[in-house]
């Protein structure tokens, strides 16, 4: 495998030196392109108080192509499916090399604050979110409590 690009090293160092509040990303012991990530549920969202684990992988041609990211912790969210895959434009066609690991994770955290049921990935969740938002939010809180709380 080619040497790790300096951009990745630089990003890793900055993630440690100036961590983003509510987000931690740590490279794996065996593969510096694979990151263990924890995103805390944003305040005033149904995910508040949850610690959500994600995995992030920087493909060979990063930053020319987007990192692969998915949730590992189960989450009840209209834009995240049962496999933990995330529907977010910057991870697909709106990717730009000006984005970084930190900006991607911030966007994902923002997605938790602002679910978008009109652009769903998890259809059943999105449906309920549109028809009965109260119940959907209760479900999201329950899932957060059951799966993502550190107790």
């Amino acid at each position, binding site marked *: 495998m080619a040497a790790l690009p300096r951009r990745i090293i630089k990003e890793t160092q900055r993630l440690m030196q100036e961590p983003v509040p509510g987000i931690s990303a740590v490279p794996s012991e065996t*593969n510096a392109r694979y990151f263990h990530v924890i995103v805390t549920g944003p305040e005033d969202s149904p995910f508040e108080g949850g610690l959500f684990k994600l995995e992030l*992988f920087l493909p060979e041609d990063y930053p020319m192509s987007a990192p692969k990211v998915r949730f590992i912790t189960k989450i009840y969210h209209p834009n995240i499916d049962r496999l933990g895959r995330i529907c977010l*434009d910057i991870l697909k*066609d709106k990717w730009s090399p000006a984005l970084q690991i930190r900006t991607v994770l911030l966007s994902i955290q923002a997605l938790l604050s602002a679910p978008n049921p009109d652009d769903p990935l998890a259809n059943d969740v999105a449906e309920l979110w549109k028809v009965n938002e109260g119940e959907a939010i209760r479900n999201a809180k329950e899932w957060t409590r059951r799966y993502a709380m550190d107790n």
Partner: protein
Amino acid sequence: MSATVDERVTDEVEALEAILMDDVVIKRVNDVPEIIETVVHPSTGDDVDQQFVCITLEVKLTPDYPDSSPEVNLRNPRGLDDQLLSTINSQIKQKLLDCLGQPVVFELIELIRDNLTESNLPSGQCVICLYGFVDGDVFIKTQCYHHFHSHCLANHLIAGKKYYQEELEKLPNWQQMQAPPYQQTCPVCRCPVSCDVDVLKTAPPPVDSVTAPPFCLTAELKALQIKMAALLAKQVAKGGVVGVGDTGPPPLTITSPSDHDNEATNGSSSVAQEGAKSDAIGASTDGASRDAAGEAAPGDPHPQQRRPPPPSAAPLAPARPTTLYPFYPLPTLRCHS
């Protein structure tokens, strides 16, 4: 509202329009000039190609201008770092005080231009490689005044076109016919750009990015890893991890912890390297689907390259047979398009 305008203002605006012509925009309400806007460039004679920085100056005239100071805003700085901006801003403040009672817009333009002329080199870093511009680097300024190493921008444009082609080929024929043609975009602002990739790619890689020091884990990183692994183990135990428990999707591949152990124990360092390599390749080709099934499992994404964990610190190892899923098994997730 009657349109009586102070003669000093009328004269100033007339002079601005006469000298700057199309480069100044005067916004009027009821014929009264309210906002003066112009993009300031460094003085480089008429050689536009040598202008690497710029900034938009916006002057909002107060009703009793010039007897009171106008409101001055600097917008869209290009190639200018925060330090220079704050220098310019404080000089503007002083100039507004000094010129109270007389028209000041020309003075402001001159002040900014002098600063830009002195710093007519991109400061800051190339957002693609995150390294600065140093002696020996070849860089390019886009039409939108963003700077990149030519080498870096070439890579972006080549990758962008490749992505466009790949996505296009996934569409049904009739949609391919209707698809808008490929357009190069600026990585920073997504403005359309047009660059000759063949020329750009002849540039050498950024000077600072050539020698890569080896990556090593710090004690701090290791501590964080252990903390995260412990959290994951807890969530796995509670059934809170994707693919674990009854809410998971149908399994694609089943493997057992003993398989992992065998692989891990047998894995010499060269095997580990191979694993890392195939991971990278598999993950970069989105559509690799089932072949890549082994590369991402919940909580144990790279089983091939795991070293045998010390007995006490194996929180990442799943407690029971685990379902393995490809990282991104579906070729497309088209959203917001």
